[in-house]
């Protein structure tokens, strides 16, 4: 099956006062159709630059991107007719009401009134916006405005949707509603490219993920692939009392409240768990989380802004 998005040696360089800064540095990957593809990385890593290029809003410096088999440079108009985007930090026009945000967007895309009205109602119901349908955007909370934008593009007939941090500012319940709508959308065999700061969200929704740091692709694949490619794919939590020096030969050890966290290979992780149980301390064993993978690859938490000058962390193929 042809990829929904094919990225080949993509580079984007911005001029700065000190010369040029690459926002994307020769990245290549493909996004399969009919799935959610998650892009994760810290602020400034290059996620939004990628989304803006793929959504035809920004020209690349070099390299190519094709969407649904069409090159962006030569088939821009055709691509635009089949995509939709919620840009990062976008807000709906404040004088519209919530229903108008969705309905008029669909009409602006050329949809007829009957179809636009039906899709608007469905999207409003799905994202629990119906009670706010007639409320003016200026009187909505930030979270509701964000939901209205999500409803707008999810209701569209676009085949590839770019959602750039769509759930920022939403409470946990509202985030789940967006997740539900996203899952419903991919059942319609549409493709969603999602950037997010929430690693639980990326893990819950994405069938494949790309980890971008300092404009470079550090890891790419399914969540299972990502786990298989880090040095220590398992984590063991060992409660105190347990001497740290006995754990260190098995992998990377971090002190946490009430015990130690050991990142290790599978056999070593099982051995640590066995030793812990023999000593009668509480032990929990499992695969590493996306947060753990991120920390190991990048060397910093996703919450930290400003990528390191050298790109940070180790390079993973």
């Amino acid at each position, binding site marked *: 099956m042809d990829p929904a998005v094919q990225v080949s040696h993509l580079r984007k360089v911005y001029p700065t006062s000190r010369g040029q800064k690459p926002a994307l540095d020769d990245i290549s990957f493909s996004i399969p159709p009919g799935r959610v593809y998650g892009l994760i990385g810290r602020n400034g890593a290059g996620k939004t630059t990628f989304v803006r290029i793929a959504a*035809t809003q920004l020209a690349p410096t070099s390299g190519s991107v094709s969407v649904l088999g069409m090159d962006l440079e030569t088939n821009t108009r055709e691509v635009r007719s089949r995509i*939709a985007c919620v840009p990062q930090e*976008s807000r709906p026009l404040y004088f519209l009401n919530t229903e108008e945000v969705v309905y008029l967007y669909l*009409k602006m895309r050329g949809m*007829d009134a009957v179809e636009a009205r039906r899709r608007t109602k469905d999207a409003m119901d799905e994202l629990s916006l119906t009670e706010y349908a007639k409320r003016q955007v200026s009187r909505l909370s930030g979270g509701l405005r964000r939901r209205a934008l999500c409803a707008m593009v999810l209701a569209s007939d676009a085949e590839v949707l770019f959602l750039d941090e769509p759930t920022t500012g939403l409470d946990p319940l509202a985030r789940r509603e967006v997740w539900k709508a996203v899952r419903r959308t991919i059942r319609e065999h549409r493709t969603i490219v999602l950037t997010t700061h929430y690693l639980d969200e990326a893990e819950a929704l994405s069938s494949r993920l790309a980890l971008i740091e300092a404009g470079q692709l550090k890891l790419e694949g399914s969540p299972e692939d990502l786990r298989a490619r880090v040095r220590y794919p398992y984590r063991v939590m060992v409660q105190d009392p347990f001497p740290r020096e006995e754990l260190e030969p098995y992998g990377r050890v971090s002190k946490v409240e009430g015990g130690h966290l050991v990142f290790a290979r599978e056999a070593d992780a099982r051995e640590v768990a066995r030793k812990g149980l023999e000593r009668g301390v509480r032990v929990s064993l499992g695969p590493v989380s996306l947060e753990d993978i991120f920390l190991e690859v990048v060397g910093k938490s996703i919450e930290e802004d400003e990528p390191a000058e050298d790109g940070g962390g180790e390079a993973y193929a």
Partner: protein
Amino acid sequence: MTTRHRLRSLLTLVMINGLIPIRTQPLFLLSLIASPLSFLFFIFIISKGALLAFGVTGGMILTMLSVGTGLQSDLTHYRHDLKFQDIVVASPVEAPVYVAGMALSELVYSLPGLAVFVIIFLLDGLGTPTSAAVLTGVVLLVWAFACALGFTLATWFEDVRETFLFSPLISLGLTVLPPVYYPLSYLPGWAQTAAKFSPTTYAAQLVQGAVGLVSISWETAAVDWVILIGFTVALLVIAAVKARWQEP
């Protein structure tokens, strides 16, 4: 997109940026006609009514230019603060449809102002088939070049505050220095030369000539039309080539 789809997009944009904001805040209508009516008031008072016709014809031209500066402010705000242009770019809506829709939506705001001027125009006995035809043509051309200029600048500005900087300068260059509210002959020689770089000079001269406020030969009128149309076409071409729909 088919022609029918384009028309639907265009009318939706008129609704989004014209009719709905007016429904929400009707004071928008008063805001846009405030400047032209203020000028008209001053001219009427100072000239004791003698230069009312200049005030009316100049007011129509200024109203159309205000549509362009209004478009420039709105589009800059939508692009930077709301990312609305990015939403539209990543959709089937083409740049000319977006600009035309937004330009028409701004025209909606100017309709009450234009209506006031048309009523005074008719009551003052200035309305003849020729003057009406010339006025309509000139007003449409001024609207077109003002919107082309507004759109181009809006896609280049890096911040909404830049519109606050440029709008008064554009107004100065297009409405105050050129003889929109008075005859070209009132200006000293050097200022007449400078005024010839502004398209509104030709627009004003055509309208003032058509209603009999100044005397211009048909050859001068023909040259004025050519220059005004040329300016408009040039600004539309600049908008098509230089406006940043996709950012570089």
